């Protein structure tokens, strides 16, 4: 097997709780291969978002390590190029139109050129928003905003996409469409996907389904 895109070893994470500490993750091991899609399910408060934040390098584990393509450098400088993130609340910048929101990822990477603009327009076209490129987030529906967020996550051709409940704020039908789009975009971009979701049907669409219970990851059932 080739080197995994994402590798987590013995991740432990706890938070202060009253007089003691609440252990959220108790030794999580995870390997994601290039182009692989993996879903992580679990009950509310089981630590799914905590795990995703550790995998994204946004938070540090108490013990254990995370590496991206063999390197433990998960800092901001590398994150922009290696990783795309999709959130439940979309997190679009309200002052920027759809196109500028997609381009923001490339601006942060510091490589804004005419080709980037073309790619951003192509991505918006692929998520069905070519005609709405210059609309502000406030003038888009929830599903449209999430599709803009998908385009933004793919803008820098990342090797890994981390999606945290991307359908949590959408109705069933719109959410299904977004998952469909997310999976097809990841396949066409050859990006690995980690999808955190409550929805068993959405989880079943990924190649591998995991369940987070009692702070550890195990095989989940579709």
């Amino acid at each position: 097997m080739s080197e995994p895109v994402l590798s987590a070893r013995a991740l432990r994470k706890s938070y202060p709780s009253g007089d003691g500490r609440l252990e959220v993750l108790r030794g999580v091991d995870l390997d994601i291969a290039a182009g692989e899609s993996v879903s992580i399910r679990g009950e509310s408060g089981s630590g799914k978002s905590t795990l995703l934040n550790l995998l994204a390098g946004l938070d540090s584990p108490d013990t254990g390590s995370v590496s991206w393509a063999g390197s433990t450098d998960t800092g901001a400088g590398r994150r922009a190029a290696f990783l795309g993130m999709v959130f439940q609340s979309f997190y679009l910048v309200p002052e920027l139109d759809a196109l500028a929101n997609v381009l923001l990822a490339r601006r942060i990477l510091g490589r804004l050129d005419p080709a980037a603009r073309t790619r951003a327009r192509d991505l918006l076209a692929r998520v069905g928003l070519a005609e709405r490129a210059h609309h502000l987030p406030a003038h888009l529906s929830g599903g449209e905003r999430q599709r803009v967020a998908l385009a933004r996550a793919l803008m820098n051709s990342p090797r890994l996409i981390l999606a945290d409940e991307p359908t949590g704020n959408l109705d069933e039908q719109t959410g299904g469409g977004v998952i469909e789009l997310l999976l097809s975009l990841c396949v066409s971009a050859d990006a690995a996907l980690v999808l955190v979701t409550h929805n068993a049907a959405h989880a079943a669409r990924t190649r591998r389904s995991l369940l987070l219970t009692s702070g550890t990851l195990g095989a989940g059932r579709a």
Partner: protein
Amino acid sequence: MPWYLHLALRQLFPTGRRFPFFTLISTLGVALGVALLIIVMGVMGGFAYEIRHMIVDTEGEVQIVARSPIPDYRALMRKIDSVPGVEAATPYARDAVMLKFGDKAAFPMLRGLDLDSVSRVTQLGEYVRVGSLDDLDDDSIILSAQLAVSIGARVGDTVEVYSPLIINKLAADSVFLPREVRVVGILEIGHQQLDSSTAYGTIRLAQDLYGLGSTVHGLDVRIKPGMNEDDVVARINAVLPDDIRALSWQDSFSEFLWVLNLERNMIFFLLLFIVIVAAFSVTSSLLISVVRKTREIGLLGALGGKPVHVAACFCAQGLFIGVLGSVAGLALGLTALAFRNNVVLWITRVTQHPEVLRRYYQFSELPSHTSGATVALIVALTIVISTLAGLLPAWKAASLKPVEALRSE
């Protein structure tokens, strides 16, 4: 353009909205501070500029002074004329006299002029409103405008001049008769103090009145255009005897100019607080913005934005407000200065005291002179202060951890 500058601009000027309320209010606060600084410093600069103009126009750029009257001043003039950078020199004799016309008296300075050379050094002729310098002879004088009004004398009238020698005559129990001279002109410089307390006659008249014989009190010197005053003064001093010194007009009026500069600097310092107060409002608005945009700040971290760049985004907003406020304030201030006299005229008409300005502020019109250096200083300080105003919000934004910011409600 770096992403943080682009985002800063977009947050100040969002797509589809021309001028958001926060940007408008913040910019307006800074602009008003800058405008006020420009207006006040322009008027203060105008006073200084006009005073310089009047001094140089009436006495030349360099004054030659001596502890005692200067004998053989013609030889001294030739020596000074030969100094590189000197355009011309003219002698003067000056002292206080008493003028009497009818039952009204005044105590002006009477300045004796050498009619052959005075026009090469001063522009006095341009300030003569009635009559001409050429009309002067040894039995006539020209009165400054307010002085003529105060004693009620007009061109053609004869006034009596009592010189300081009256003291000596009285001490010797001698009879002293005043000198009767005709008024042949009225001169108005535009400075209340000069226009109410100066009279001009020939140098021979002044020499007679002051008992100077053929000596003079000093010389006024005009230097060639583009020459450095201090360099020329140094060269003149090198050829003068020890008891005679050349002083630049700044040195001659150094105490007055020091007070003028002190006033100017104090007013600048005090008015700068308006910009500082405006900067506090920028800080306050940006801090609110940081709180409102906490999750966006978290997003920027998640997208790979570095904390220092997030900080730069908010600092840049302070910078842009400073630049915009400076440009708007500059335009507002310069426009107000352009119409200053209309405003002053309107105010004096409303308050029905149009003479107050002349009586207490020395000038018939509100002067204005805006130097590039002053404008540059105001703009630079405003931009620095506004940028500093963004520091606290920038630090708050940069210290937010992305994971906590994204989780915030």
